[in-house]
Every structure is written in C-alpha cells, then in structure tokens.
C-alpha cells in the first residue's frame, strides 16, 4: 500500500478509503466471438495386400484402427484409405460421431493382391491436401516394400510414392509409418522414408501383436493425446471387475477403451452419464460417456485366459476461458508531475464448460497445481490452477485491450478451447487536482454518523424491545435444553443450477450445548455447494422442544409471511417451515423442523 509522508493525517485516511473503494470495481468484460480452431485431420492408410494375410492372420490391424480412431478427441476428422493393387477402400473425412463408419468400411477389407503404396499414399495425401485443418497426419501401416505385377508398375508406384511424400512435406502433412513383419525390419526401408521426409515417426513391430503398442506411441508421442491407463489386468477367463474413481466430472466426453490381444466379452459398465454408447470389436471395446455425472466407474468383463486387458481412459473437455478483473488503485509513490493513480488489474482466470456456461471446470483436487501456459498480448506466462482459478496481475496505465490465448497442452486431459479471451481494461482514474480541507470534513462526518447511529439505536430500542439483539460477532450462547427432532431441508435453488435431493439432518443426535450453523448442517449432509451467509445462521435447542434460530447473516429468512430480523433469535416450534434466501440472492432453501 502507498504512503504519502508529506500530507496531513486526515488526508491520508481519506485517500486510503478512496483507494480501497476502487479495489472491487470491475470493468465489463467483452469476450471476443468464439474462434474455434479449424480442427485436426488424420488419415489411416492401410496396406491390404495379400502378404498381410501371413503377417496379420488375426486381422489385428483392423482392431488397431479402432484403437486409433476411438482414442482421438472430437476435434479430429478422420479419413480412411486401404490399398493393394489399387485403392480398395476409402472413406472421406467423417466427424467424431460418425467414426463407426470407418470401422464398418475397415471390416470389409480383404488382404489380397499386390502392394501399390504409391497410389495409396497419393490418395491419402490428396485427401488431406484439400482439407482445412491446423494439423494433418497420415498413419500408415504396411508390411513390405512396394510390389506390383511387373517391374515397370513397381517403379511407377515408387515414383508416385516419392511424389506424394514430397507433396506431404510441402503442405505440412506428417506421415507416421508402422512397419510390420520381417520385410520391414530394415528401418532404412523405402516405405519408412516417408516418415523421415515429413517429420513423422517410424515404428517397427515384427509381429501383429505389437501394432497396438505402436498406435499407442503415435497417439501419445506424436498426436499428444492425453490418456491414462486405469488398469492392466491379466485375464483368467472368468469375470473381471474393475472399479475406478474418475476425476473428470463435467467432461464433455470420457472414452473408456479396453484393448486386448484376445477377445473381450460380456462387458458390463455401471456409471452415471447424460448418455452413453458403446462399440466393440473382437479385441477391443469402447464406452463413450457424454457428460458423466459422477466419478465412479465400475466395469466387469470376461477376457481370454492368459491375455492382458488394458483399460485406458481418454477424457475430453470443451472449454471456455473467462476472466474477472478487480482493480487496486494507489497513489503514486512520487506524485510530483503525475496525473493518474497507479492501477493494478488483478485478473482471475477460470474455465467453464462451453455448452453450459454456469459450470466451472477443473475445480477438483486432481487439477490443483496444474500449470497452464497463456499469452497476454503476446507475453507468455505460466500460471498455476488452484480450485479451478488462476490468478495474475497486470499494471494498467491507460484504457487497454487484453487478449489472452490459453495453451492447454500441459493439461492432463484433452481440451478443445473456444479461442482467445478479450477483455477491455479501464485506465486509472485521475488524481484529485486540489485537496479540500479533509480534516474538517472528516471530523464533521464522524460526528454526523455518530449522532445518526445514536438516534437510530434509540428508535429501534424503543420500538422493538424483543427479541434481544445479539452481539454481531458472537455465536449465540449454548443452551441447556436437549435437541429433539430433525430438519428436513429442501434446496430449492442453487448458484450452479444443480438439483440437490432433499436432505434430512437429525438434530436429536447433537449434544445439548452445541450451537450449529446452517453451513455445518449442510456440510454434514454432504452438500458441496457454497451458500453465502449459511455460516452465520445458527441453531440451538430451546425449551418445550423448540429450536432457536439466530440469523447473524445478510440472508433473507422468512417464516409465516414474516421476515426474521437480523441478529435476533426466534423460536421455531415443531412443524415450523422456514425459507432462506442466501446472501448471493440466488441460492434458496426451505427447511422444516420435524419431530
């Protein structure tokens, strides 16, 4: 806080008051129209030549497509191409909810014929080249060199392949190659060259079982997909049960992917979500939950004895960044020649669900201390998330526009953001030109206020002798009577908009000397919502089975059409019904005192 040594004492007090008043003033925030990113596009390119029959007799490659496509967040558009002597299957880009079409297409594929990787890659690159996307990838799975019926065709295909690689490199498409089988053992193989030339990654797996692992690496290392493994289970052929706490409340989607090298059957899942769907292949199963309501997930399934089943969770959030600004104005340390206060904007960033702007995200412990990078007008910062909020300060010398661009890449979940946040920050107020006689004004104001307070106190005292006012800061004195009955509580409105089921709180279990606040009651009922002022509404036991309610808060409390006065105590008989509107003027609650 500032100090002005050369001014009078009264003047300092008034300035201080003025500065404090300015602290809570917020400017209206204007959020820029949503700028959704163009999204990302990926094409899975599969070698469906006859040699795959021996390298992938169990058709695990098909399952790996499922593993890839169902693990990707919703902002990915997927395409699919398979080739042998020609293009045997292709599907243009589909949206997130149509991915099953790819699987339907993939399952029709037969491993047959020669291997014209040139045509295949050219087709895949062509698809992506026309696509408007922030990131473009090809994931190619092949078991060997290009081989056509004659040398000329082979050579032509190779040329095509090279041209496609060049085109990909030119337009920024990254090609990741998974090589399968003995023929691909040599990592300098012609097919792998595509990865090198386009800044992609090459993977080699001698057996089809390893495709799963390669896909995993593509997902996490190359595409930056956030997934967590909640269990790896050695199946014994019987029913396996898994129970897990998922900290992803309010996530837009949570995908649970079970993968194994052998069939998974009889999958049963218990959870609560707005909606859910499931897809299953012979060796994978996917449960996609939309807006899971609670964190508990229970799974049971039957694996094949001797095989491992891995359960991965891929959470996905649609996030809107919001900012709240408060200003602190201080007198400049060196006031000479300065016209304005020193103003600091304290900015609190928080994250909300795009669809339901009332739902704040990432308030759970799991997200605490997560670092999020952002740029404010081009200046990079790294802030820490605490109870869903990140705080920062920014000096403000004049009216300015602050553009904040978040970077969610360090979040442990997949995030689709709705773009930058733009806030208008108000410049500091002008310093007073001439100083009035503060001492005199302050003196008069203090005398006037004291006189008014005395008059009001006298009037109130003469009008309302009962009930007796309590010292404001005190909890009521404990009572000697025993508690009886219970409180039935009905939370009729909450700030978050969530419906809380009716609650019941047994009063008779409380020791007689206990004074309990509404906040404590709500907490003991497991209510996590905050009710402003609930901590200042007190209950204690009274005579004749009555309950004494004392309101020291600014909540509005009504009983029998009467507003119960602040800092007074009231007797509630059995069956009494009381309505409370809390200090935020939104949350409401009704309770009944029952036997």
């Amino acid at each position, binding site marked *: 806080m500032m100090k002005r040594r050369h001014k009078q004492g009264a003047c300092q007090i008034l300035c201080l008051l003025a500065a404090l008043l300015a602290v809570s003033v917020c400017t209206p925030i204007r959020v820029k129209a949503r700028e959704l990113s163009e999204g990302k596009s990926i094409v899975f390119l599969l070698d469906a030549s006859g040699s795959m029959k021996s390298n992938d007799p169990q058709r695990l490659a098909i399952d790996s497509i499922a593993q890839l496509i169902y693990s990707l967040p919703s902002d990915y558009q997927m395409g699919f191409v398979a080739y042998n002597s020609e293009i045997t299957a292709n599907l243009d880009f589909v949206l997130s909810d149509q991915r099953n079409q790819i699987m339907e297409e993939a399952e029709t594929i037969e491993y047959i014929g020669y291997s014209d990787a040139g045509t295949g890659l050219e087709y895949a690159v062509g698809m992506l080249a026309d696509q408007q996307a922030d990131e473009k990838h090809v994931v190619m799975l092949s078991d060997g060199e290009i081989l056509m019926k004659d040398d000329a065709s082979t050579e032509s295909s190779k040329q095509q392949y090279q041209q496609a690689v060049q085109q990909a490199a030119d337009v920024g498409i990254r090609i990741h190659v998974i090589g399968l089988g003995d023929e691909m053992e040599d990592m300098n193989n012609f097919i792998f060259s595509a990865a090198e030339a386009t800044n992609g990654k090459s993977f080699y797996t001698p057996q089809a079982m390893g495709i799963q692992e390669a896909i995993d690496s593509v997902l996490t290392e190359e595409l930056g997909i956030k997934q967590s493994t909640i269990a790896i289970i050695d199946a014994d052929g019987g029913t396996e049960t898994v129970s897990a706490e998922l900290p992803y409340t309010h996530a837009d989607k949570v995908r649970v992917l079970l993968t194994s090298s052998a069939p998974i059957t009889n999958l049963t*899942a*218990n959870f609560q979500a707005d909606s859910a769907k499931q897809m299953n292949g012979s060796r994978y199963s996917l449960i996609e939950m939309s807006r899971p309501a609670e964190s508990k997930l229970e799974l049971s399934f039957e694996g094949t004895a001797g095989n491992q089943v891995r359960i991965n969770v891929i959470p996905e959030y649609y996030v809107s960044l919001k900012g709240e600004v408060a200003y602190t104005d201080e007198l400049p340390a060196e006031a000479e020649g300065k016209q304005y206060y020193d103003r600091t904007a304290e900015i609190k960033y928080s994250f909300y669900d795009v669809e339901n702007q009332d739902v704040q995200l990432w308030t759970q412990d799991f997200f605490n201390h997560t670092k999020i990078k952002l740029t404010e007008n081009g200046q990079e910062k790294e802030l820490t998330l605490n109870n869903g909020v990140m705080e920062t300060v920014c000096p403000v010398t004049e009216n300015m526009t602050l553009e904040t661009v978040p970077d969610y890449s360090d979040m442990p979940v997949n995030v689709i953001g709705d773009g930058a946040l733009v806030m208008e920050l108000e410049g500091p107020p002008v310093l007073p030109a001439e100083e009035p006689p503060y001492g005199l004004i302050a003196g008069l104001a203090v005398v006037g206020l004291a006189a008014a307070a005395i008059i009001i106190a006298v009037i109130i005292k003469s009008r309302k002798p009962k009930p007796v006012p309590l010292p404001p800061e005190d909890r009521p004195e404990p009572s000697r009577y025993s508690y009886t009955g219970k409180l039935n509580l*009905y939370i009729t409105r909450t700030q978050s908009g969530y*419906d809380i*089921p*009716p609650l019941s709180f047994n009063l008779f279990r409380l020791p007689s000397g206990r004074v309990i606040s509404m906040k404590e009651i709500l907490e003991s009922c497991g209510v996590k919502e905050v009710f402003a002022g609930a901590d200042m509404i007190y209950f204690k036991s009274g005579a004749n089975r009555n309950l004494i309610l004392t309101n020291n808060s600014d909540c509005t409390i009504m009983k029998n059409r009467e507003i119960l006065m602040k800092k007074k105590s009231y007797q509630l008989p059995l069956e009494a*019904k009381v*309505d409370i509107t809390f200090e935020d003027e939104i949350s409401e609650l009704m309770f009944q005192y*029952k036997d």
Partner: protein
Amino acid sequence: MEIISQTNRTLLLDVINPQEQDLLTLVGDVRGIDSLDDDKMREINQHLECCSYEDVERKFQPVVWSFFDASSQSVKYTLEKPENIPENMLTPIHVNESENFQKAVLTVMNSRKAQGLLNVEFEFEKLLEIISPKKVMDDIKQVRKEIQYNYKKYAELEEGDPQKLDLGDKLNLLFEDASKNYNNIMAMLPLAIEDIKTRLLLGGGEQQQNGQTIVPGYLSLGEKGELKVLEAPKTDVTALATLDDNVNTGLMEVIKEDYQAFNSETNDYVQNLVVRTFCPLSSTQQTEIDVDTEVANYNSYLEFYRTSKDNFIKVVKPLLEKLLGIRMFFDQYKTKTKGMRPALVIANVSPEMMAKSSYLPRLITYLNTTNGKNNFKDTIWYAIYPNVSWNQNVTTRIQRERFKGNVKKASMDVYSMDALANLLDVFKDYRVETFFSFENREETTFNAIAAEGIDKAVEKCAPLMGKAFSEFAIPVLPNFTVIPKNKSGVVLDSRMKVSENNVAELSDAKEDIMRLWIEGVYINGAYVAAGFRAACQCPEFLKDRFGKTKAVTDMELPGVRFDIEAGNNALLAYTTMPKEITGFTNSIKSQINQKNFGWIFASENASLNGEAVTNITVYKARNLLYDAEHSSYEPVYKTQVTTYIERILRYVTGDFKEDNIKNFFSNNPQSQKSKWLAKKDCVNAIITEGDSLEYTIDEANGVCELTISFNGSPRNLEVLINRLTSNMP
C-alpha cells in the same frame, strides 16, 4: 360421518395434459408461507379435482396434437403441444369416447367383461378391427342413412311448418357429426379408401369376380322363356329414381356448400369424395373411373393410413393407458346409492418433477393445507404413483444384436424409484398412503406373475423397505392386460392390384395384407387398487357388497378398518376387472402367502355360497412395513386406522387437550371410544372384536401414547399433549 366426511380422496401423480393447469403451477410461490388460503384451494379443486371420469375428460381435455411434416411426408403426433409450429398447422385429436382407438379398446374391455372370457380365450383381433377403414365407414353409413331419411322428410315439408324446423335441428346435429369427417384430411382417408374400394370392386369381397367388370342389370325372362340378366340401360329412369334424385341433388348441394364453408381451399377430388360418401345414391350420375390411378391412390392411402395410425397409436397409447387407469379407478365404485364417492386430484405434473427439491416445498405446503387442518373435506388419504421403472440400474451390456428385438422403452413415461422415495418421505409426514405399480410391460402382467412369482418385484421394492416411510408405500401387482401383446395385430385391409383385364381386385398375397401392431394395452394396477380401496371406504359400497350376508354395515363409519384379507371379504367385495388367467399355481400362492407382500390381485376360480366370482379379487393388501416378529409385511388397514384415530382424536380433543383425551378414552357411553366399541360387530367397525385401544399419559414429557392393538398386534402412536390451559410446568 359428521367429523371426517371422506377417507378416500386420492392424489394422482401423473400428467394427463401438459397444456392444462397443474398442481405446482397452481400452488405457486410458497416462500414464507405455511399453507394455502381458501381461495387458492378452491381454485386448485376447480382445476384438478375430479369426481368421475367425465370430469377428468372435461377438465383435462386429453389431447394428442398432430401435424404434417413435409420433409418426411408423414403425419406426426405428439402429446405435448409443439411450440414451434403455428397454431393453424396443428390439429388436436381429443382422446375421448368418440376417438376411434379408445372406442376400440373400450369395446374390447366391455366385451371381455360381458363374456367373462380369459385373455387366452378372447378374440381380440376381431374387435380391434374397429380401427380399420371398413368399420369407420360402417359408422358413417349409419350417419348418412339418418341424414338422408331426415333430409327427405325435410324437403317434403312446406316452408314455415314447425315440424320442418324440428327436422332442421336434427339435421344440424347430424351435419355437425358428419362435418367432423370432412374437416380434416386424416379423417377423410378411411372414407377415400372405402370409396375407391366401393367404386372399383362394387363393394366386392363377398363374391369373386374373376377379373371381370360387373355391369348392373335386371333379371328377366327372354323371348323363349329363358332366364336372363339384362344390362340396365343408363337412360332408363324410373319415377322413384327421379324422386330420389331430386332429394339427392338437394342434399348434394347442401353437403357441397357445407364442405366449402369449412374449407377455404377446396379441392374437387375431396369435394366429390365427401359428396359420394354422404350421398351415395346418385343413381343417374356416372363418373369415369381411371382404374390404374385409383388403384395407386387406394394403395398409397392405405399405406399412409396404416403408417399414420401406427404412429398415432404409439403416441396415444401411454396416454390412453393412463386414462383407462383413471376410468377404472372410478369404475370400482359401483353402488346403488352414492355415498362417500371417491375423488381424484390429478397433479397433472410428472412425479419426477414434483420430487425435485425445488418443487417439494410446494407439495409440502399443499399437503399442509389439505392434511394439516381439522377440516377434513380436502384431506388427501391416498396417492397413486404409476409406471415405476422396472429397470432401475443404468447398465450397458455390450452384445451384438443378431435379430431385431424390442425397442427399449424410452424413459419418458416411466418414473424412478428415487423420485418415489423422495415423495414418500413427504407423504409419510402427512400420512398419505401411496399405491405404486411398475411400468406396463409383459413382466408385470398376471401371466408373468403366474409364471415367475413375485420375487423380482420384492427385490425391486427393496430400496423402499426398512425406511420411516415404508408404511406408506403399497406396491401393487400385477398390472391388468386390456389387449395382450401377442394378440394385438389389426388387419386394416389388403392392397389392391390391377388384373390382366384392367379390373381392380384385392391382392391375396400375404405381404399385401396391411396390418398394424398395437403391442399390448395395459392398466397399471395402482389405479385399480386405489380405486377399490377408495370404494371400500364408503359404507354404502360395503353395504351393497355385504347385503346378502348377516353382517351389518354402519352408515356413519368409513371403511378404514375394513380388512379385505379377512374371512370371505375378498369374495364379497371385489374389483370390476374381469378375470385374466386361470389362476396362480399353489406354489406361487404359497410364496405370496409366505412373504405376505404387497397389494396382490388374484385371477382365481372362486365361488361363495355357490355363486362363482368371475372378477379379479384382492389376494393381499400389505404395505412395505416389515413386521419382524411375524415375519410378514403389515396390512394396509392398520395404517389408515391409526391415521383415522389420530385425526379424530385431534379433532375431538381440541388438538390433544389432556382432559379431553381422558374423556375420549373414558367408559362414558358418550365417549368416542365407547361409541366405536358399540359398533364393533359392523363390517366397517373402527375397533373390531379382538382389537383394543389404550392410552398412557407421560406427565413428565407431556406426551400421550396410544396403543392400538389389531388382533393382539400393537401399533403405537405418540401425540404431544396440549397443555396451554392446564398443567403448565
């Protein structure tokens, strides 16, 4: 019954018509108030209280909204009025007795009741044909016959003749009826279908034409005496036909004019169709028939009719099932003289909504007004919570759908056990006994219970057991079957085809038979159970049922203590529902008896004094309060007797004044207890032989403890003594 005039007012927790008023809206904001004022209560009763089924139809106007969807070229139906569609594009279809589907279902119910046949014996398909175009036409034929008869008489009379005016009134009514058909295209479809059929097949069906055109003719003798059928000359007009034509021409003009008055955009085809339908005797008026077009029209009309009827039935069925339930609620009360007539307050709001914390205070305030006063006119004694979800867990089981199976019922009309528990927690405070039954499906019918027993139901009720409110939860089993799923096919008609001779004929091919499936119509047991129990409260009802026995019914007492399970009571007082199956096996019955669970209906062969009981009887009448000592659930009557005694005690003792309590239980012949004891042999005695009513006063705590023993099994009730006038500490 000077103190408590009724003990059977029932609250129905369901929606009938979302456009009409509902309990939550009418109660409104209750912040800071304990109860509702008398004006508000009057308003609620005006809108929601019904004393008969007709009342329900009048107050709630059950309706299905229909509109045409140009994108799918089909008719859409919905129970909730679509807000984004202009009013003039919406057609309300009132679900009342004149609505075809309801008419069909009611006919089925009435015929089955009259014939006393079991489900397995009854020919549902035949009666369901009522919804086929042919039957619709039959109804119209009757109307048009009356129109013609009256119009002919009307035309003959002179202007100014008072009789002509009377006939005018009659014709107005008949035209009003007929105009319902030509007012909307949907109603015209069956007409058009039958019209084409009549013109192309000459009403055929009875005789095969072998692909030849029929030419009307006369039977005559030839020159050589041979029998001949001569083709009737078109110009040959008899005097009678001319007269007919005069009448017809006039009538045709009237119908044309009426059609034009109703429709701003008239259409020649429809106009001619209306005229042909209502005035078919135009013997000298011939029109050319384009067989191919007409056959194509017929087939498309029939397909459209089938699809839209199918869609309609899918939408209206849940509503109809509710309405049938309400009808059966009232139907249980059949007496010669009306006494304590059951009343139904329809909340008209989803119980799920009502059970939300945000709305429960409104229900509490309402019940505080009805049940928290010493005025018992509006007291709610029972509630009906229908359609409890049979599947309670959200479980996804992954498996391949190898064959097309049942589409899983959307949870729209199914209510959860959680919401029921929330409501019961409130109802318990106001001592409202709640009848609930599971959703309508095969697993909840008599057939399923007979095959599988009640174990599943017991298991599903487990969340409501062992709770403070268990006493007020009455699970009702099974649901009633009006049309079984496997007998719910309706043949509408067959497609038509053009034969080689360019003659239209109905196709015999199996795939050309147009059929629609109703997929079963059921009634929730809770409606019938509540209706029956409500009826049993009325002394007149009990007197009617026990009239033939020596038992006396006291006309001043309600049937709160009437134990349907005792003696032969169930065979004397039974429901109005006809038997459905041959009965439960002995093992299922012993399972039910061993558990003594729920309100169970029985479809058993039984007779009393040589007279067969052909209706469904009540086999068990228990709530979910478990009596560990007797290893059984408690009979429902105990709860209601306790409630009744508490309410009478509160009233008579001026809110539990100590002196008055002592008087209440004293041996003075004028005391309430003595009055009840004097009537202990009556069918509807409050305290019967073997029961006792004792009290003790705990002076220290100011509490009066009542012990009501029902045949030795005690039930305790504690009331706080009102000591304002004396014994102040």
